[in-house]
């Protein structure tokens, strides 16, 4: 939690650092929306997360915060429970998933992938070209009612894209592992650049996989 900021308990007016429950009267407290996801789980600000610890803390916190438990409570309690649980769920979803955690880490560094990041990452140019060509062939074949003949080729392409996707995910995992050792010193900007590159590759590969899947589905339904 953010120990620098003091907040006032809605029930007993006790002043305390940001916590989930008032240390004085135990009432549920509404978290500030800008609280960072790691601190929600009382985890160190480190992009490498022990999934077992994360999940067990998520369950533990859900058992204390969930709106089901405040159904008979006051409107303040209900609101705090609803908003905190929404934040908890968002934080868990983000930290549990490698790619989302990577994106969140990038945001914490004050950076962001462009919303409409449609430029093909240079390292993927050859692959993207090949896939697009294949997809065009499939569309043509389907138009000529020869859909089933090309679905096998499409499957091969998919394996190739999937392999490249997994490779980028591994790069991301390695990149995140290195952040713990930087302590905010030099080397950070190179890591940041690599993080950005591999996240944008992953985003692009996902779109590509979706296009391939859509095309093969269309061929099946012929």
């Amino acid at each position, binding site marked *: 939690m953010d120990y620098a900021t003091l907040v006032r308990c809605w029930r007993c007016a006790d002043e305390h650092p940001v916590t989930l429950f008032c240390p004085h009267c135990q009432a549920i407290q509404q978290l500030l929306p800008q609280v960072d996801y790691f601190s929600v789980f009382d985890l160190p600000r480190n992009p490498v997360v022990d999934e077992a610890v994360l999940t067990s803390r998520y*369950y533990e916190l859900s058992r204390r915060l*969930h709106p089901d438990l405040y159904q008979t409570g006051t409107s303040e309690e209900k609101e705090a429970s609803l908003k905190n649980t929404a934040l908890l*769920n968002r934080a868990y979803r983000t930290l549990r998933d490698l790619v989302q955690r990577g994106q969140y880490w990038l945001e914490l560094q004050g950076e962001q992938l462009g919303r409409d990041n449609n430029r093909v990452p240079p390292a993927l140019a050859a692959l993207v070209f090949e896939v697009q060509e294949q997809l065009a062939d499939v569309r043509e074949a389907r138009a000529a009612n020869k859909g089933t003949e090309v679905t096998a080729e499409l499957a091969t392409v998919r394996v190739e894209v999937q392999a490249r996707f997994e490779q980028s995910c591994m790069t991301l995992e390695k990149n995140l592992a290195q952040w713990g050792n930087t302590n905010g010193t030099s080397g950070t900007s190179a890591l940041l650049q690599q993080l950005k590159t591999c996240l944008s590759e992953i985003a692009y590969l996902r779109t590509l996989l979706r296009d391939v899947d859509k095309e093969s589905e269309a061929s099946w339904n012929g």
Partner: protein
Amino acid sequence: MERIVGIDLGTTNSLIAFVDGDAPRVIADPHTGDPLLPSIVAFSEDGQTVVGSAAQAVLAEHPLTTIQSVKRFMGLGMEHVSAADHRRYRFAEETGIVRFAIHGRQITPPEVSALILRALRERAEAFLQEPVRKVVITVPAYFNDSQRQATKDAGRLAGLEVVRLLNEPTAASLAYGLDKKEEGLIAVYDLGGGTFDISILRLHIGIFEVLSTNGDTRLGGDDIDQRIAERFLLAGLPESKQHDPQVASHARRAAEEAKRSLSLTETTSIVLDVPEQNIHVARTLTRRELEEAVDDIIARTLGPCRQALKDAGLEPREIEAVVMVGGSTRMPLVRRRVGEFFGRTPLTDLNPDEVVALGAAVQADTLSGRRKDMLLLDVVPLSLGIETMGGVLSRLIERNTTIPTSAQEMFTTAVDDQTAVDIHVLQGERELVQDCRSLARFKIPIDPHPAGIPRVGVTFMIDANGILNVTATDLRTKRERSVEVKPSYGLTDEEVERLLEESIDFAETDVEQRLLIEARTEANTVLHATDKQLRQHAALLHEGEVEQISTVVKTLQDALQGSDYNLIRDLIDALSTATTPFAQRIMDTSIAEALEGKELSRV
């Protein structure tokens, strides 16, 4: 602590349950002992309504004014109504939300559902001897926001506070998990009368975590009945007869009966008898024929199963138990197909009709604060997004996100002195707005400033019911801005209020009337049952018994013409007394028949 009860508002049948001590139990009809209330509402010309088996009894005769499977229409617009629906009912309008045209009145699906809820409420109040005000109502997991909102409106119209909308497969998993004390990954396959859901859950020390859900809100036993009726009963008839509502209604009823018996036997007879229209079709039907005719309908459930597993990141073999819910899972074909898909025998030992209501009662107990050892973590079934330039959907909340959840977006103005921002919210998985389901349009007022200066933060919060709430804040002044909601396929708040006022007026002026209607309804049910037994088991009647019973029947029928509900009630009791020895003999005989042919040691 105020009691909260659980309601399964089903397509075919509805149930109400509560927690009795520690265990959930369903409240049965006090007279028939049947836990199921058929979800059928009949409207008579004089504005009266009957619900349940009494409505079922008049269904074939009055198919246009007796609403069945109303759940299929909840939260829909007229553009979603099929050609078959158009043949079956009369609708008041061609556009906008669904409104049935009944005896010159317009009646919306939430109003019909409210009548079913009211009947259940009265059943529970009579049994518990206390007012029932708060309820948990179950909905298909794959219900979208409009369908959920319509269900909530139905609760309000029935004078109930809907404390929570609970997903049906999740409710079933609760009843299952508490009953079996199991942990691990389970799949709940829920094929009901009109809807299909598949949910994948992780059960872990009292936490029921939904990992993913999928389904089809217009797929169920009704489709199977329709197919049997078309294929085996209607096919040989002239087209005008096939589409005749009365004929079609009889055919569906016969199809349903044949389907039920083919779950137990290999061969059955199926009969369509409408003497008024000179129609008589009779044939035998084998289970194999039935299965061939409906296999493609069952197969349609497997796509959603595949998608749900994919979304949960699991393979079929990783599922440790498959729980079957909904009456349609009694079909051997369904059990076989599901078993093949998951590579394991599905669990069928829970009563598939009752398990959802029981789970709802358990969750109601938790929400009332009495139970603290379990927690449900459910998800939103469909992605939620807003319309952006060029009719493209910008997704804010992905499907299968755990609820409650929220997303923030910042909006600004495009022209000088713009005084409002319009936001169009949709639900669905496709990229283009035209392929997704419109939920609502929100208008957010803005103080006039040069373009791009205003900054409005909009929060989209999906609560624990899976229902969207939108709030807006002016980021410069930090002031909350009001949000004006136009639901795409729902009743506006004003409309709900108006209907509510009308129904309260009705309820308060007509307590006597209601008691009379109830007594009449019950009398009709009892008379109907007596008549059937007399015809079926004539051989079991003793001398003089027919005359004795007939006298009471006649007196009761006469009393039905009058309005003395106390007299009607007394005569119902008298009839029951008169038929008791006869009923006893029927019971004895059927037990004897059931035992016949079995070895004594196995009895």
